[in-house]
């Protein structure tokens, strides 16, 4: 979480740093490959870039959801160095809570604007709290008893919990896709700039994501509890000596991550108007890729990574073929881990080795 502060000016650069820089540029080059190629293709074909811009806009909206999920991965990894495999499925349950709570409130596309705004706010609170509390409970049951155990052990329980949550989703809403009521008319055209049309859904993704991200960054950067989180992330033992309750702090981290996942769940439900018990697996892997890309443990990196992966995903969906998108994103994941495991903004030495 302390990435950019480490940039202390040094007079001479060692060879290791140089190759590190090269790796970073290779990674940036890889990421720019698709947008640049398709941009040139567009200029040659249509004479303008509006198709590429539309792809990027859609990618950013999808990426906002991934960014919110990625925050959960990165917070948890930052503090206990665990890949919380179950996180994608917490996000899935967030969408299910949204779906269920819409039914409880009786929200449909026909509800008036005041009712929709109030209902959405209430649903947001319920989804955030539901996912946050769920995440805290998972930590309590599956990760805390294993804190002194070998590294592999909590990772395996995380995979196990991912399956349990998927099974809960399967039993809750069944094995087929359900459609979430499209209460905000996400495909309604709002305005067009430079040939790029913005829909209700795009605005909604921004309206939900930006305050949550800003709030989280402010909380972690400025509040007392946030400082406790950063201290625990740096050195849990030293933090304990300074009087920080490490268990509570870790629980708080899971709560925040779960709340971000809950927000992602409601945005996904409104934007994609779809819910499925298996959605968390794929989204979780994409979000994890985003967290690694940004530099795991780094909050800003996770958001940036989420937006970039969203764009890659959208470009691949629109230009190549939807069926190949997961394979392409996973290939990116492997390449990132090969060339620069610490990601774009991450510190060296934390992840690899």
């Amino acid at each position: 979480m302390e990435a950019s502060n480490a940039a202390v000016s040094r007079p001479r650069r060692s060879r290791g740093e140089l190759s590190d820089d090269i790796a970073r540029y290779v990674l940036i080059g890889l990421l720019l490959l698709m947008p640049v190629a398709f941009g040139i293709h567009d200029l040659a074909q249509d004479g303008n870039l509006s198709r590429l811009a539309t792809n990027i806009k859609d990618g950013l909206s999808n990426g906002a959801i991934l960014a919110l999920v990625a925050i959960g991965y990165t917070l948890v990894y930052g503090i206990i160095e665990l890949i919380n495999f179950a996180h994608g499925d917490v996000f899935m349950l967030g969408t299910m809570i949204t779906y269920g709570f819409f039914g409880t409130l009786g929200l449909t596309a026909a509800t008036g604007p005041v009712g929709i705004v109030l209902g959405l706010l209430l649903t947001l609170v319920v989804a955030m709290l539901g996912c946050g509390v769920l995440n805290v409970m998972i930590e309590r049951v599956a990760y805390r008893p294993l804190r002194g155990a070998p590294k592999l052990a909590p990772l395996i329980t995380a995979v196990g919990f991912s399956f349990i949550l998927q099974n809960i989703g399967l039993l809750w809403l069944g094995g087929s896709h359900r459609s979430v009521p499209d209460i905000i008319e996400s495909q309604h055209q709002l305005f067009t700039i430079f040939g790029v049309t913005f829909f209700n859904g795009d605005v909604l993704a921004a309206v939900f994501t930006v305050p949550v991200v800003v709030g989280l960054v402010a909380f972690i950067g400025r509040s007392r509890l946030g400082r406790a989180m950063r201290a625990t992330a740096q050195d849990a033992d030293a933090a304990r000596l300074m009087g920080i309750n490490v268990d509570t702090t870790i629980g708080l981290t899971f709560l925040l991550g779960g709340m971000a996942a809950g927000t992602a769940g409601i945005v996904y439900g409104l934007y994609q108007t779809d819910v499925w018990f298996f959605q968390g697996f794929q989204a979780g892997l994409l979000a994890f890729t985003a967290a690694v890309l940004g530099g795991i443990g780094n909050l800003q990196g996770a958001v940036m990574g989420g937006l970039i992966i969203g764009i890659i995903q959208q470009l691949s969906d629109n230009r190549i073929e939807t069926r190949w998108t997961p394979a392409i994103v996973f290939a990116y994941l492997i390449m990132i881990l090969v060339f620069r495991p610490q990601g774009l903004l991450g510190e060296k030495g934390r992840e690899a080795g």
Partner: protein
Amino acid sequence: MSGAPASIRRATEPLRTPWGQRGVAAVAIGVVALLPLFVAGGGTFLDNATYALAYVIMALGLNVVVGFAGLLDLGYVAFFAIGAYTIGWLGSSFFAERLPNVHVGVTSFLNAQPGIHLNYLLIIVAAAVLAAGLGALLGFPTLRLRGDYIAIVTLAFGEIIGKVAVNGSDIAGQNVTNGKIGITPIDSPNLPVLGQFTTLNLRPWYWLALILALIVLFINFRLRDSRLGRAWIAVREDEVAAVSMGIPTVKVKLLAYAIGAAMGGVAGTFLGAYIQEVNADQFAFSFSIFVLAMIILGGLGSIWGVVVGSVVLTVINRGLIPALNGVPQKFGLDFDPSQLGFGIFGFLLVIMMVLRPQGLIPEKRRARELTEGLDAEEAVYEVKR
């Protein structure tokens, strides 16, 4: 050595198998080998037992990677897929119109069929070589990474292979895997002594699986006690210390991936032939976890534990869950027990890790570490900081 603390002395004692245990193992293998003679040749029991043996092969392969070398592999299903497609390509009429017909050592019936039909033994060798190659290839990007990142890379690799299998009916215009429709029928093996391989007589299938499982079991035991096996355990316990002792970690890790993958490939060819179909739907992430749950349940690194774990999970998966059909309805609950498969494996993983991380039959060396090693390790760690 007399001055060393008791825990170190015990940890460095050689691991020897007493003769009594060997006798028990020999009797058990004899019973298992003669079992089919006393049950119906086409029944459910023999069917499940054959599956169990195939899963034993697979779990023993994963045990080499995860149990011995400590590299968490979440994409093991990829090697099942490689093995299954090898027999799909080399033992069916899939390429009938596109490639010249090839027939090597097959029955007169298959000799008359178009396509590529090789003898099962050749296919096993091909699958093992192909899977080992891919396993080593997968190993390369993980060499620099730490444990949990290895898990992610292997998971991504498994997913990529799975996507290629699903989308493989049209890769650059070529039908490579026939996607979710699948390649069928797959040739049955043609081997001497065992008898006729048919769907009505499962005994030859069972014996073939048993022979393969015993070979893999033997290889596992010899590997564990070999120089390579000890190198794996050293890498698992402390990579830095292993490097400074002169262990070539790159070679050792790649060998673990390759050997584990080859065993997965062999199991894949057997299951492909036994199910008589190779279908992209078989290669989902959940299968990797199914196999992982077997070795966690039995005990990571413990060879007999892995065997027991695979048999227990096969019983749960193929016996217990179908037997529960209709039970929830009796209690007024409305769900299908077959949907619970996932959740049960997940639950087993969590429970085993929290309550009994060493597994049902712990490996001796690992049990020592888990009970006595913990304090010692903790002490060293604190001083270092």
